[in-house]
């Protein structure tokens, strides 16, 4: 009765992503060689410092942030800024590249497949971005080059840091888009909300390190890496419980379906579809989370009323149950309206859940194309927009839904 849900992950758009990171790497490499080489400060390769930065890159990558929607984003802006601030660009890039190789090797050894490929591509992307940022290296090296640096040197450092973070986010979003995700602007929004504060921690810590580096040397870097890890860990724990929360609701939604064999897996399929549609319709990560919960729980009101065919009644019952649950309150209107989509003020999330649910039931009875035809003929207004996105997703096979 219960099929183990094995997460299957096949990385999409590998070729497009490869081309993108290759181009980025060429630009980054060119910038690093052009500007970094021009500095001519490379006395000899500083193995100790490069090693320290490599270690920092590695631990920061290991502690990648896991977002509620399932993406995993390694952030190493802090190490990158510091490395560019005190090392020659070539040394910094070498340190990052060696660590990237190591990290990818570990991933492939653990589980070869889509996620490892993604991680390897992400490594190249990260190093390339670092190369691009190295154009601004003189600004980062102000504390080292000035005789009596004051706090004004922090301003260019913070600005370069912000630019670095934005470039990092933008390139991740482009990679995501090439892998079949939301468009780039939405991708940036999806990442900035949950990750913004982590990026700020990285920038602030890097600025502090560079400011005290002339006095404290690598010690400052060690201390700041430790602080960054601890702070990042607390964000990660928070994100983890957010994920656990979603997983628990998923498990309970499965449980709620067990006495209606004809419905087995329905909620999960609707949730997968609704998330894919929501991503394409520019919902924020917050809204996506709500859509996911609403989709998982949209039939809660059917429990114990299996024979009751009144759609409006079960939607109202479900909404009522959810209303009393802390943290799930905001999804109550999504459940309440998922069958009465014509009313003005119906949230977009409700339309998405409603249409996806209808699609799933039609598809189980009549097959994919017939289901799409029926929906295209029947839905108007905003729901027609949802149907259009749904059709794109289904025909592209982006949201592979597990069959019961």
């Amino acid at each position, binding site marked *: *009765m*219960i099929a*183990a*849900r094995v997460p299957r992950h096949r990385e999409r758009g590998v070729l497009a992503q490869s081309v993108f990171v290759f181009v980025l790497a060429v630009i980054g490499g060119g910038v690093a060689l052009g500007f970094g080489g021009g500095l001519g400060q490379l006395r000899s390769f500083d193995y100790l410092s490069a090693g320290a930065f490599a270690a920092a890159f590695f631990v920061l990558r290991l502690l990648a942030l896991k977002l509620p929607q399932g993406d995993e984003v390694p952030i190493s802006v802090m190490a990158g800024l510091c490395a560019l601030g005190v090392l020659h660009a070539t040394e910094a890039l070498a340190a990052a590249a060696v660590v990237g190789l190591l990290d990818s090797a570990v991933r492939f050894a653990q589980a070869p497949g889509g996620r490892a490929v993604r991680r390897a591509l992400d490594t190249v992307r990260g190093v390339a971005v670092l190369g691009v940022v190295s154009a601004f290296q003189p600004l980062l090296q102000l504390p080292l080059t000035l005789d009596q640096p004051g*706090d004004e040197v*922090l301003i260019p450092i*913070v600005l370069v840091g912000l630019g670095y973070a934005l470039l990092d986010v933008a390139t991740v979003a482009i990679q995501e888009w090439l892998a079949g995700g939301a468009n780039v602007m939405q991708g940036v929004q999806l990442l900035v909300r949950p990750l913004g*504060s982590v990026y*700020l*921690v990285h920038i*602030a*810590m890097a*600025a*502090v390190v560079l*400011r*005290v580096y002339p*006095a*404290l040397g690598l010690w*400052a870097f060690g*201390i*700041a890496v*430790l*602080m960054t890890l*601890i*702070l990042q*860990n*607390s*964000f990660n*724990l*928070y994100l*983890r*419980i*957010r*994920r*656990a*929360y979603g*997983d*628990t*609701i*998923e*498990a*309970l939604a*499965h*449980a*709620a379906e*067990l*006495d209606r064999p004809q419905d087995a897996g329905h909620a999960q399929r609707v949730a997968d579809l609704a998330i894919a549609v929501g991503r394409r319709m520019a919902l924020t990560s917050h809204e996506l989370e709500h859509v996911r919960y609403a989709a998982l*729980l949209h039939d*809660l009101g059917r*429990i*114990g009323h*299996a024979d009751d065919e009144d759609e409006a009644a079960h939607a109202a019952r479900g909404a009522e*149950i959810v209303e*009393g*649950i*802390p*943290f*799930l309150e905001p999804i109550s209107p999504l459940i309440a309206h998922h069958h009465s989509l014509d009313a003005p003020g119906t949230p977009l999330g409700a339309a998405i859940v409603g249409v996806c649910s209808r699609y799933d039931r039609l598809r189980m009875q009549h097959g994919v194309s017939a289901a799409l035809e029926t929906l295209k003929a029947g839905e108007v207004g905003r729901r027609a927009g949802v149907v259009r996105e749904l059709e794109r997703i289904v025909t592209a096979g982006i949201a592979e839904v597990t069959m019961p």
Partner: protein
Amino acid sequence: MMSRRLWVYVAVLFIAALTLGLLILPHQDVVEPLPLVALVLLTVALGNMAIELPFAVSMSLAFASVFAGILYAGPLGGAILGLASSVSLQEIKERKPLVRILFNMAQLFLAGLLAGWVLILAGGRLLSSADYSSQGPVVTLLAPTLAVFVFFVLNLTFVGFSLILRTRLTVRQTLDAMNPGSYWVSLLVLALLGYAMAHLISISSWFGLLLLVLPFTMARQTFRVYVELTEAYTETVRSLVAAIEAKDRYTRGHSERVAIHARQLAASLGFSSADVGLAERAALLHDVGKIGISQATLTSPVQLTAAEVRQVRRHPVIGADLTQDVAFLSDVVPIVRHHHERVDGAGYPDGLVGSEIPMLARVLAVVDSYDAMTSDRAYRPGMSDDDARVELKRVAGSQLDTRVVTAFTALLDEPSAEVDDQ
């Protein structure tokens, strides 16, 4: 009586603080005041903001600035920042007893003063002095470490002694209650934070100081949401399980009642608070696999067929499967799976015997049986409380764990435990 002893203690601390202050401070070199003023302002602004990050017990962020004060200006810095960190607007607003505010002033002043003094005795140079960089690498590390240690130990001792005076616990009990071992991660982090702060103020980098502290205040916000979410978590599971159970009037409220009893019983058996929470979560979810069984079977008023019995008996396995997918719930899986095992090995699904059955599963089995016996079923009315107790005692040793049954009946006898909550 109590408070008089406390007043005497505080008076002794004050006299000690004054004497030692007069003995130590005049020997110190003059220090530039601006950095210390900045630290004081920052400390007061942060209040006694505790960093309650999930990696350790909370400690006040002010500790970092006291340490920065010690590193920058030795005994003087430690004493001033100690005093500054003892003044919390929050405590004054909450009208905490005066004796407590005075106690904190005196003890933090003393601890900061002495820690700074130890730093100098150990040969450490102050960051405010010109020859800071001339000290050897060993001293650079050793002296500050020693100073942190002295501050921490003094602080603990002063607070511990006031606890002993107030509560009359023994020294050992006080140490147990304060559990100093749990602080070391926070101590390390805050010491390093203080170290970085001291260096920033010594090069008058005020903006840098803000940049350093800002992330910690942000993390605090995140952690507050984290705590809220953790609390909402159990509440969500409770509500959803209740909603799912509501389909059957005979099982309605069952998991909720069992969870309350499981919690009380686990606590009375001396489990740790983490395990008590686990018992509650497992109890809430123990019948989640039953939802899969058709309503007709569950509410059947007649004897079940062999096939139906098999179906009902699968519910612990189904429940374990459902919870297995959730990382956060992996610890409830064995308890859910084994809550229908019997100590004589005749239970299901795995026929485990005695101590092979997880202890919390045995706890759950007792409270589950009790609730099942005392509530109505389609095929029989519920038993009275007395009959259920007799029945529990009868099956102790064969079906249920004797020790757990004894503890549970004792719990039911307690007037405080609300037994009849149907």
